[in-house]
């Protein structure tokens, strides 16, 4: 927990502290279960992790409920409900992971491939009972846009959802053209922890905005950047939706309204001078 979070806990009103203290029996029970009756003490860090896991589950079950309503509920009951929810989310994420693996693009990117392998290890290591907030794997592949501030299985589920969407976009292009473009734009990209979505989106959207075939990634070079910047920069914010609809159609890509923000965010970043 961050220093700021500690300070905010210290300044919690009495009602909220009392509410948090209702977790005590559940925390002690968790500690006993974890220690397997072998001991009645644990390293402070381990105990803190057990508590963080419980708070993660409480937050999961609490959802978007307002604080006043939350204070009327039993945190220990919320913890148990949240624990069950994380177990259910694990099953959902496993299904999503299987779909991502089946649809994965062919790429020499080490971080892309290694991260997918690591997510498989996540499922082997994840402990929804005691350490539900942890992410026990190393993920080096960055996705576009802001990383979610979530933890545990919620983070993995969100990451897989976004990974699947980016992968679906990347799969619109032939592997040879896509890989040739990346090699030209970012020499040595396969060994670097770089996301593939943004450079490919930039080139494809740039080609399309310039009136060319968005699939012809293999022809793009850094010399085209000024032309792409001009074409994409000329778009007004209220034209983004229409531009993207035509862009998706040209690529044969189906995008749900909930998925639109990935592409809108990429366009905005380009207009702000961030190509990839």
């Amino acid at each position, binding site marked *: 927990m961050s220093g700021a979070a500690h300070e905010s806990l210290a300044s919690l009103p009495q009602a909220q502290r009392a509410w948090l203290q209702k977790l005590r029996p559940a925390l002690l029970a968790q500690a006993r279960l974890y220690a397997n009756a072998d001991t009645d003490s644990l*390293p402070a860090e381990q*105990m803190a992790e057990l508590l963080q896991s419980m708070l993660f589950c409480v937050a999961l079950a609490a959802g978007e409920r307002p604080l006043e309503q939350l204070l009327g509920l039993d945190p220990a009951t919320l913890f148990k409900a949240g624990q069950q929810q994380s177990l259910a989310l694990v099953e959902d994420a496993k299904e999503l992971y299987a779909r991502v693996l089946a649809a994965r693009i062919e790429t020499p990117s080490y971080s892309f491939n290694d991260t997918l392998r690591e997510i498989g290890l996540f499922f082997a290591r994840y402990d929804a009972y005691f350490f539900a907030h942890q992410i026990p794997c190393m993920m080096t592949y960055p996705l576009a846009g802001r990383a979610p501030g979530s933890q545990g299985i919620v983070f993995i589920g969100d990451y897989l959802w976004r990974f699947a969407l980016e992968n679906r976009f990347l799969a619109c292009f032939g592997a040879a053209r896509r890989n040739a473009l990346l090699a030209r734009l970012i020499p040595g990209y396969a060994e670097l922890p770089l996301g593939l979505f943004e450079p490919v989106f930039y080139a494809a959207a740039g080609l399309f905005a310039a009136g060319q075939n968005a699939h012809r990634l293999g022809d793009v070079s850094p010399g085209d950047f000024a032309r792409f910047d001009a074409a994409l920069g000329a778009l007004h914010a209220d034209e983004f939706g229409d531009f993207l609809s035509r862009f998706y159609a040209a690529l044969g890509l189906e995008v749900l309204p909930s998925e639109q923000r990935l592409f809108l965010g990429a366009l905005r970043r380009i207009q702000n001078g961030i190509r990839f």
Partner: protein
Amino acid sequence: MDPLDIILPDAERRQLQALGDVLALNELSAQFGLVLGETEALALVARGESALRGAGRVSFGEGPLRALIFAFCDSPYLEQKNYEQTLAELLDAFYYFKSESGESLADDELISMMRTFYDAYEGSLDHLFGTSLEELARHARENRDGGAAPAL
């Protein structure tokens, strides 16, 4: 502030509970000529808390003092004149070895190993503090299997 501080019972309450538990054991230890007064018991409970904190641990039970008294009170090397001091040092040793063990030893198992070692070296706490966890474990194993105590 650590959220654990909000949720876990405060040390004072835990100490009061532990004090009662320790004093109740006088009935058993008195059979071996060992008794703790309230002041001594309180000092030991505080020592246990301090050793716990020093080892970077958090307790969610009664602590090892009661188990140590129970396990050691019939040792022929424990006398009333060094009873409190020995228990205090055993508390330190317990948490030292507990941290060293990386959670691989149960409390009861560790206390049993300490008792075996303590008796084998005629109540020498210097030997206990001077040994390693591996040596302690090896000694307990060999002793349990009927072997001789290894020389340190």
